[in-house]
């Protein structure tokens, strides 16, 4: 079985997977191929400090690129750490194993977080030549309420099925305006055939369902990552040079009492541990910490908006995280603004 020690080896292995070429796959000790997955990771760590989700990292021949060394699952994860704040982990494990390994790794390491893609980022290829959207997922968990009272909504639609039910398009469009998008499926077509078919998730994961050219795939993932890296840098500069808060606008009104109870315990998906310091019926002020990084956060919350202030050198990734999770959990469609201008867009 051939070890993957160079970037060229990695590309060869991925290309064999796209072609489902048994002969090529056998060279790397495989007889079948799993779909390639990419995880965008927001990092305030060094590669050594962050460690590896499975085994240890070993450098490839290209600076900033690593493959994992492990007794049981070697050559299954690959790290592109060439950007300062946003890394990419490519995985050729099956989805369940891969997702769990990444989840446990992020949760056990301070200073690591997912990248939380906004609606505009998920719809980045909209209107671009060769690209078309082939599906989307919407989610509303109503998570501030107990299970029995929650009014949940979940939808996953592949465009094409809508031709079978009159009015389905309209329902999807209405739901899309009201609820948070948690996944978007995109196709790139060239000469009448599919060059890339990928699904992007709001937690910064992408699954490549079909592809022709490994370089084209890596570039499309890189494109989204660069965009997020730029957004993080821009938000960090805003944090350092202004005293203006990040504003998160919601499409659904949220229950402030339920929100207050959840954050006092440090529970809930948002992982905020906050103390309420001011309360009116339709406005609350909170001070506390972001449990992902233990950075300080100040959050002022109204029924359909929140102001997020990040003192000191606190990680600005809290803004897209709160917007995404709050949106999918209970606030519907969300957008982030700074001084009236949309950011993370």
């Amino acid at each position, binding site marked *: 079985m051939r070890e993957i020690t160079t970037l060229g080896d990695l590309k060869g292995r991925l290309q064999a997977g796209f072609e489902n070429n048994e002969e090529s796959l056998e060279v790397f000790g495989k007889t079948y191929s799993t779909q390639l997955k990419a995880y965008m990771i927001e990092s305030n760590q060094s590669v050594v400090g962050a460690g590896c989700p499975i085994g240890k990292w070993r450098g490839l021949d290209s600076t900033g690129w690593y493959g994992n060394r492990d007794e049981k699952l070697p050559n299954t994860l690959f790290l592109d750490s060439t950007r300062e704040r946003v890394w990419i982990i490519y995985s050729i494990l099956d989805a369940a194993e891969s997702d769990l390994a990444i989840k446990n790794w992020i949760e056990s390491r*301070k200073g690591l977080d997912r990248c939380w893609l906004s609606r505009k980022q998920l719809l980045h290829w909209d209107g671009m030549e060769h690209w078309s959207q082939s599906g989307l997922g919407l989610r509303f968990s109503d998570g501030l309420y107990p299970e029995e009272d929650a009014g949940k909504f979940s939808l996953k639609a592949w465009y094409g099925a809508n031709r079978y039910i009159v009015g389905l398009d309209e329902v999807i469009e209405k739901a899309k305006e009201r609820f948070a998008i948690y996944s978007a499926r995109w196709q790139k077509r060239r000469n009448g055939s599919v060059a890339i078919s990928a699904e992007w998730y709001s937690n910064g994961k992408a699954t490549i369902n079909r592809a022709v050219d490994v370089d084209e795939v890596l570039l499309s993932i890189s494109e989204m990552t660069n965009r997020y890296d730029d957004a993080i840098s821009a938000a960090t500069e805003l*944090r350092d040079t*202004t*005293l*203006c*808060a990040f*504003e998160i*606008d919601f499409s659904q009104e949220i229950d402030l009492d339920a929100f207050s109870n959840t954050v*006092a*315990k*440090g*529970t809930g998906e948002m992982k905020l*541990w*906050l*103390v*309420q*310091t*001011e*309360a009116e019926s339709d*406005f609350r*002020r909170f*001070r*506390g*910490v972001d449990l992902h990084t*233990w*950075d*300080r*956060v*100040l959050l*002022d919350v*109204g029924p*359909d*908006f929140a*102001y997020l*202030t*990040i*003192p*000191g050198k606190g990680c600005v990734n809290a803004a897209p995280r709160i917007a995404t999770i709050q949106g999918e959990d209970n606030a519907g469609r969300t957008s982030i*603004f700074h*001084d*009236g201008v949309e950011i993370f867009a």
Partner: protein
Amino acid sequence: MTGWRYLPERDDRIVLWRNTIQLFYQYNRPNFVGPFKAAGFRYNIEPLFLSYEQGENLEPDIVASCETGWLILELTTQPKSKEPKLDRYRSIDSRDLSQYGLSVHDGEPDVMTSRLSDNVDDGPYCQITVDNILKIEKEEYLHNQRLKDELIEAEGMDLRRLPEIPIAIIPEMAGKWKEIRRGLVEIVMQIFDPNSDGKTPVQLVDDGLERLSDKIRPAVRSQLISKVNNAMEDLLQNHLSLYLEFKDGRYRATEKFKTHHKTMEFIALRLREWAGTPKTVQTPLFKSE
């Protein structure tokens, strides 16, 4: 005989700073465009200048400029007139604005005060009141017509729900024990990070001062450290004795602390009780013999 006069203690200084600073920004919900933002101003906080004739140090709270002029803002909760100080600000050399990334203008600045109440006369200068509702007085002293128009337009704006600013402690807070506690809440919570070595009193103050940290005088810093130590002592003794200790010069979490949601909720409730919610508390304004 000791006589006392009282004013309500809320987070006066923080509210004053917050509501003034936010006039330089805009927010979509509720629809809010601060008058300084509308007039195109960019600002710098606590810059140092020298007076033109004497070379005296002048440290206005906020200096701002835009295409149509420049502005000096003094923020105060003091019951005395700021007129003499404002007079001195007029001698600041506008060429020094460039040092702070602000555009340079010929001529004198518009000088004004920002207060939480309108019962003090600061002389021949425009005064804004930023407590709850924006109020403008003596705008006739402003030279910049655009600024004057935007301020008049903004009068009556509701300022009660503007966002917090990242600065949690400010130098003038030294006498306000409840306000200091509220400023420390989330800084204390960071001590419970399982990877934290705790925080020294100096770190607590520096974290709270945020970007003002390197701008305050050592004597003021010492005063704040002393106040923070008193507040923390009370927190340790009377509210969080189980979970917080002072050891080797640092405030640390005790070994009993675990990141369990019940413990975290308990700590959050105790911190809330310790800091109090901002409401009208009787507190001495000044003491007369």
